[in-house]
């Protein structure tokens, strides 16, 4: 039995997106299409009536098995601006805590004629599992699974980079911090490689750099001076407090001293380098407060673009899933 790889699973026979599970294996053309589509949605937020009817009559279910305010809110806004009906399900209070299996729970939702699941789950591969084995005819959007992928975050980062830097070909991008636990970093790496970035670097101590990460097409640096030298884009990652407890780091202050993005270390990068962060920020841990607020920081722009990028992904996946369904009806 040949396992279905996530990037095979997420496209229909015409090569259109029908689920969005990972940026891995997607073509440059498809990623560019997402960015271009997002471009057309940016202005929707500035209209008097902030709505387009692309998902009218569709039911979108936000299934967050892990807490998140920001990501869930931007997905909800994106779906509502596309005129979908949105259902938010608080899983910790729902059935899996009563021993119901994930499959049973999702099948119930499917039979309520849901059209799309936006899934955040602590297990790597959970959205992939849902798309392959549970509800293949519901469009599944990965809103973050374990350490595996957070593809919409990566695409909004790509969108931010394109808005500020234009093309990707000449860019050197550094991703700093807890790469080991970061689904954002993995999705950024795949997207940047597909879009043709010149060089991708990861910077951090060995305890936070996963084994054989070079195989994903990155260079590893343990030192900020070398790693940030001449970079165009800096992506900082959130550092969770648990990392100190599990003996991955001695203290926040030592991490900040070595890998925190300070004004001083920022000087190693190109003068026009932009600074990104997926949020929420720990000021004084992974980034100096003044740097986060500086004019080179594009962190708040990212939040704004996030809605447009998610609108793009939702509308494309819904249309790919519908095209698939109508083809199957013709076959039958």
């Amino acid at each position, binding site marked *: 039995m040949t*396992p279905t790889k996530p990037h095979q699973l997420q496209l229909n026979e015409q090569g259109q997106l029908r689920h969005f599970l990972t940026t891995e294996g997607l073509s440059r053309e498809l990623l560019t299409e997402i960015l271009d589509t997002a471009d057309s949605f940016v202005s929707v937020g500035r209209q008097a009536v902030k709505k387009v009817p692309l998902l009218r009559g569709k039911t979108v279910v936000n299934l967050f098995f892990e807490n998140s305010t920001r990501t869930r809110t931007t997905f909800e806004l994106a779906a509502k601006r596309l005129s979908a009906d949105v259902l938010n399900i608080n899983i910790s209070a729902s059935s899996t805590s009563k021993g119901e*299996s994930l499959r049973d729970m999702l099948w119930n939702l499917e039979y309520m004629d849901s059209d799309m699941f936006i899934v955040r789950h602590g297990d790597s591969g959970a959205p992939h599992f849902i798309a392959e084995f549970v509800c293949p005819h519901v469009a599944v959007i990965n809103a973050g699974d*374990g350490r595996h*992928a957070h593809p919409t975050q990566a695409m909004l980062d790509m969108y931010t980079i394109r808005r500020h830097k234009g093309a990707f070909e000449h860019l050197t991008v550094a991703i700093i911090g807890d790469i080991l636990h970061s689904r954002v970093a993995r999705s950024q790496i795949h997207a940047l490689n597909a879009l043709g970035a010149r060089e991708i670097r990861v910077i951090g101590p060995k305890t936070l750099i996963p084994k054989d990460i070079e*195989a*994903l097409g990155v260079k590893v640096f343990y030192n900020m001076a070398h790693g940030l030298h001449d970079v165009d884009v800096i992506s900082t990652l959130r550092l969770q407090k648990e990392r100190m407890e599990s003996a991955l780091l001695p203290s926040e202050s030592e991490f900040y001293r070595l890998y925190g993005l300070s004004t001083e270390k920022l000087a190693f990068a190109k003068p026009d380098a932009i600074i990104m962060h997926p949020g929420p920020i720990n000021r004084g841990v992974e980034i100096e407060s003044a740097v986060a607020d500086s004019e080179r920081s594009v962190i708040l722009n990212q939040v704004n673009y996030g809605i447009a990028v998610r609108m793009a992904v939702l509308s494309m996946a819904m249309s790919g899933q519908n095209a698939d369904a109508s083809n199957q009806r013709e076959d039958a």
Partner: protein
Amino acid sequence: MDYSRPAFNQRIVIRNGRVIDPRNVLDQVTDVYVADGLIAGIGSAPVGFKPDLEVDASGMLVIPGAVDVCARVREPGQTQKGTIHSETRAAAAGGITHLCCPPDTKPVIDTRAVAALIQERAHQSGYAHVLPIGALTRGLEGQQLAEMHALRETGCVGVSQLRKPVKDAQTLLRCLEYASTFDLTVFFQSEEPSLSLKGGIHAGPTATRLGLPAIPDTAETIALSRDLLLVQQAGVRAHFGQLSCRRSVELIAAAQREGLPVTADVAVHQLFLTDEMIDGFNSQYYTRPPLRSEQDRQGLIDGVKAGVISILCSDHQPHEAAAKLEPFPSTEPGISAFDTFLPLSYQLVRTGVLTESEWVQRIAMNPALLVGLDAGHLELGSNANLCVFDPAKRWKLTEERMLSAGKNSPFLGQSLQGQVQLTLKDGAITYRRLGKS
């Protein structure tokens, strides 16, 4: 439920098969006669022999029934995954006449009652001998000694702590010394718990790409090194099961060179699968120990060839479908492996790793010696435990073909070469394709 039982007391002649019995240095095309549950003749019929059944095994191998040193039958306690009846029938279809079941049943095999129950159920079903392995510590909790002597008296062929931790080195040392007192073999599955995260796979590019917890080979080698040192100190006979990496083979080889009484086995799937195959979050490839790198796979094959690993086992672990239908890290590890045990292991003969005789040693003779069984050979007058295997036959593994209650195999849908045609347990036909249309 199927309450069928194998047919007893038939007189059977198996003609023209290539009969291989390494213990008696036998490898020739000849006839085997079975009567009264015994091997009644090889080459010439016993006086007055009139067969009830005559089968033609031309082009096939006639070998001792396989002895599997690690196979879960899931009973008592987990009958949603399999029963002694269903799993021994599946074992018979896989050419297995004897299997050892690890003590992690529910309740654990730490009392005479559980050990006796398992053997009694197996006897009632009649498809394969089930030899329990007792718990090393009470409840497998790693705190107090289990009643090992009582377990041995009730038929346990060894004791094991499996992958469960023992409180500390002193407790483990005492367990080993106590086991040694009564000449019990201790079965190890060496694993350092802090490096063996749940839902984890081999620490390598695939774990990094998929964002799954990474289990380095030191999870095995650290524990194995410590276990070997304690084995030496306690002077106990030890068997190390289901090795997963090259460095473990080196550690076992070094211990054997020093003259330690240690043996090792590997699960056959570990010789054919690697961590890269998990790409796509396919939970059928989720095993414990994890599938490792290509270099590890090669290292294990070298170990099997050199005889450092002298035993091949199935590590059969049947599951209900739901156990594999969760997001990858929440699924249960293991493969339903009886169907693929002989075909896959025979591939080592086809690829020149082993001779036919060495293959039979590793699946039947050596495991029988390890657990002290009068089996794994075709001695005249001994119980007729044998298997007829067609090495050329190609077939496809499907759920329908699997007799095990667990259909969880990464080899489903694949074409396999080599098929069991007939299995006899103490002369009774426990599985038969041969001579049937």
